């Protein structure tokens, strides 16, 4: 076996957690320091994998680590990385240190607990993205709920218990449906292949499901992913959770964990249930388009900043789902870029707004006004995050949105045209919020707001840098994700439509 990089990536945050439990006398580092270093080292390992990742390789997964786990059920502890997983693992590894750095001092005497949960979120997210065994995927899919549950329930706002409960109920409901589908799938493999297996590659390559089984199984997994992503109408937990959670938690939740839903659609639904995916695609696209406009429209009228961001994300998840189910290379790659862009811009919005919210202990839009004067740097960074979020050209979000829309346009013109109008709504919800919070006459409350200091600006600068970098140079993401998208396109037997009237002499 080659050097187990993936295991190393997965274990580093866990080792960090272990070190935090050592008595302080024998281990003289502060918990914050440990958390920062372990997430940074994870990032270094991820970068090492990123550099070694071979985009020309024929194998779908790389760096596989495979142990037998529960042999009687054919369950393996199998980690492997496709282009899609790598992109999302990298996103996780980048965002976690930023979140830790930006929020490490928020919970003075409880920072140890907070940081442990955050690192657990990172580890479980990484495990989900790398799992190549469906059972391992399921276990991690459920395990992710735990740290977020405690982060919301122990560190959130006034109605945190309600929010945490709502969050976990939705999560468990989806997980349960998925579990049922998973068990069914297992029995199908047991009868058809003669041995029960959960290996994703075996399920992808060897299984032949009959039509109705495939449809039901597809629906089982899809509902779980759609609740996680979340798609309208299964979205109502997100605004409540985001409203009560701290900005750091919201970033981890919306920026990273919710991507598991869209990741699952692309990495599990499409390859394992290609026929059902094709059948359901138009319906799902319909829901996605509805979600795009619905989320955007509802975002406009929100009174709370964090709720607004949540609805914006719901709208953006609509774009991602639309890209995935467009079944075009451009649309799918666009969806992957969108996941990255959305993660980055969400982090920017929540973390910068978080500084404001923490100072005034309120996330209501109406409690601010004219913040620019007191906090110009904060305003500037927030504005850039806003622009990244509304897909201004030159930002990563634009590349993503354009690719998703173009991909969709190739097959579903109506859906693409309707959802393009989302760019107008985006300008309205974001700039109206910006106008009310940051511009206009300075209100009494806003006068006492303290601007970001140099250190905080440095912490947030990677968010801006990456947004702009991928806006002008998205090639790395596109290159890494092309093989897996090609594979998925083959799997669902989809072809890119040729141009209708190409130039003479051009193919």
């Amino acid at each position: 076996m080659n050097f187990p990089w993936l295991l190393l990536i997965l274990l580093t945050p866990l080792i960090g957690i272990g070190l935090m439990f050592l008595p302080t006398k024998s281990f003289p580092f502060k918990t914050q320091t440990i958390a920062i270093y372990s997430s940074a080292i994870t990032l270094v390992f991820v970068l090492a994998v990123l550099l070694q990742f071979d985009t020309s390789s024929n194998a779908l997964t790389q760096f596989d680590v495979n142990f037998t786990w529960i042999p009687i059920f054919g369950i393996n502890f199998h980690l492997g990385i496709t282009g899609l997983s790598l992109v999302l693992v990298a996103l996780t590894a980048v965002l976690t240190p930023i979140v830790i750095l930006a929020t490490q001092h928020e919970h003075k005497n409880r920072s140890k607990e907070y940081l442990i949960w955050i690192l657990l979120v990172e580890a479980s997210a990484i495990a989900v993205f790398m799992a190549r065994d469906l059972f391992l995927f399921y276990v991690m899919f459920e395990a992710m709920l735990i740290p977020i549950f405690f982060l919301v329930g122990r560190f959130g706002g006034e109605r945190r218990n309600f929010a945490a409960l709502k969050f976990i109920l939705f999560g468990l409901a989806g997980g349960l449906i998925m579990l049922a589908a998973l068990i069914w799938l297992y029995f199908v493999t047991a009868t058809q292949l003669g041995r029960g297996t959960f290996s994703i590659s075996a399920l992808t390559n060897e299984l032949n499901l009959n039509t109705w089984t495939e449809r039901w199984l597809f629906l089982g997994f899809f509902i779980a992913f759609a609740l996680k992503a979340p798609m309208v109408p299964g979205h109502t937990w997100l605004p409540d959770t985001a409203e009560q959670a701290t900005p750091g938690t919201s970033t981890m939740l919306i920026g990273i964990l919710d991507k598991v839903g869209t990741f699952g659609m692309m990495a599990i639904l499409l390859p394992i249930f290609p026929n059902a995916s094709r059948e359901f695609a138009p319906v799902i696209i319909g829901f996605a388009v509805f979600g795009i406009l619905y989320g955007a429209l509802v975002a406009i009228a929100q009174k709370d900043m964090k709720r607004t961001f949540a609805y914006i994300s719901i709208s953006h998840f609509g774009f991602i789902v639309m890209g995935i189910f467009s079944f075009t290379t451009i649309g799918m790659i666009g969806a992957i870029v969108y996941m990255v862009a959305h993660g980055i811009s969400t982090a920017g919005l929540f973390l910068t707004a978080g500084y404001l919210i923490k100072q005034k202990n309120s996330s209501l839009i109406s409690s601010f006004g004219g913040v620019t004067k007191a906090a110009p740097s904060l305003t500037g960074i927030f504005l850039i995050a806003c622009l990244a979020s509304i897909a201004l050209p030159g930002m990563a979000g634009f590349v993503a949105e354009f690719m998703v829309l173009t991909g969709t346009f190739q097959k579903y013109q109506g859906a693409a045209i309707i959802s393009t109008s989302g760019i107008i709504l985006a300008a309205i919800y974001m700039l109206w919020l910006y106008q009310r919070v940051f511009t206009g006459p300075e209100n009494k409350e806003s006068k006492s707001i303290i601007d970001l200091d140099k250190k905080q600006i440095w912490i947030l600068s990677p968010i801006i840098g990456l947004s702009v970098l991928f806006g002008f140079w998205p090639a790395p993401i596109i290159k890494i994700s092309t093989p897996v998208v090609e594979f998925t396109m083959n799997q669902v037997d989809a072809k890119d439509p040729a141009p209708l009237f190409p130039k003479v002499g051009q193919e």
Partner: protein
Amino acid sequence: MIALAIALPALSAALLLSLGRRTNIWGPYLSIAASTSAFLVGLWQFLLMTNRPTEERASITTIYEWLVVPGTNFKINFGLQLDQLSVSFVLLITFVGTLIHIYSLGYMSHDENKRRFFAYLNLFVAAMLLLVLADNYLLLYVGWEGVGLASYLLIGFWQHKPSAAVAAKKAFVANRVGDFGLSLAIMMMFIIFGSVSFIDVNASVSGSPSWVPLTIGLLLLLAACGKSAQFPLQSWLLDAMEGPTPVSALIHAATMVTAGVYLIVRSASIFNASTFAQNTVIVIGVISLLMGAVIGAAKDDIKKSLAGSTMSQIGYMVLAAGLGPIGYVFAILHLITHGFFKAVMFLGAGSVMHATNDNVDMRRFGGLSKSMIFTTITFFIGYLAIIGIPPFAGFYSKDHIIEAALSHSWAAGIAALFGAGLTAFYMTRMVVMTFFSKPRWEEKVHPHESPISMTLPMIILSIGAATIGIGLTQNNVFEHWLEPVTGFSEPHPPLPILTITYITLGVVALGVIIGISLNRKIPKVAPTKVTLFTTAARNDLYGDLLNETLLMRPGMKLSKFLTIFDRGVIDGFYSGLGLITGSISSRLRRSETGFVRSYALSIVLGTAILVLAILVVRL
């Protein structure tokens, strides 16, 4: 090489914004230097280009591959196209831009945030250059929204004023409505032609059925309407005057708002292929040119009046661009001359405001010619240029447009002619009210001439406004220059050209005379008893009202309704599930009484039932 022209201002903007207050002292100068060097780069490229034979003048530089998906035809380069059309724009943008940078040095000297102002100006220059230099529609889109962003930031520069913040947002949103069209157009190009570069699209249009250029053309027109403040997306431009005056001069008069015209001219092949799209462009142009003129004639705010005028003049350009090959060159010619004379007038207005404690109400001006000599002279040159008195610039460009319009149809020609009369009327009104007539200042006001950093740009621009028309049309230089890019065919108006010129001049003279005679006496407060028409014109012909009743209010209602729907119905469904489960469980748990003996009874009964059930089944 031309990339430097974009990179330098962009770099300077990034530097000024990220370094913050440290750059307060030298920041503005760096910004001016960046803009100047962009101009020099442009000039150098222009000179190199003129030295080459006509067919070798256009060139495309691919900087790098921007968006490429291997294995598909999705391939969009970060490429810059330098040809006669784009270099004309580069020169206009950087030249006027640099002068306005210098002007701002004086105008903004007391503003504590002037570093930010200069950074935004540089950002604008960079984005605008990217817009005109891009070799494909998607990259053009980057510049297109980039200038929109710069415009947003600059309109809202004095963001402590709520009106400025609202105006900025309005401008951005209206632009986004246009961008909706542009996005769809670009996507359609990719789906239909398989490429979004200008060259490929131009080459492919002819091979497609007629609905293709029609649809794409109309979508591009929507985009142009948004950016260029043409009907029906015009209403943001008047509000945009909330921004500092140099911004109004550079962005909302000379350069950015003309980007729509650039887009139409750049997409000439698409519009040439669809007569219906062209006619729509003409109709939009005519409506806007008349609307703008009417609004300009009714406003007492000098900047808003000028903004109405801008809308009207761009209407001329759009009209010309809709005429096809007979009009493209004149659209661009008018665009350039307009860039000069409108900039000089805006800067003049700024200078007047500077002298009168930021007053903009023309009813409180008057007689300023005595105290502000340079401003008066330069403004007057701009005035002569815009109403089209030979040999000033506007004469050459506008006269050509009227000729071309007449050769298209009588209706378009007469509308353009009528517009010329209106222009003469409202501009005369403005000049009379501001510089001549009796002083009507408030008591504290002591008008004075502005500093050299402000007058110098005005002087240079006014020299341009005076001479550039004659310079560019001598021996049809400009037609020959642009022909390889836009195509050109000689217009054949139904009347002799000289006759048209005389008629035009006659109409203009009539406008001037009416303008003077109606403004003999100017009340300090606008009269309230006016005709319905005047009231409508003062209210921007109810453009805002229309937007509000048709879009904003219903949209807001929908949004609020959906919020309630979301809480009540969708979330209500889930909460309902929770409530039902909860109530069932709270009823069921009543059975847990705590009495051991009742538990024992239930065990006994349960066993008995089980036994009975087994017996029943067995029997």
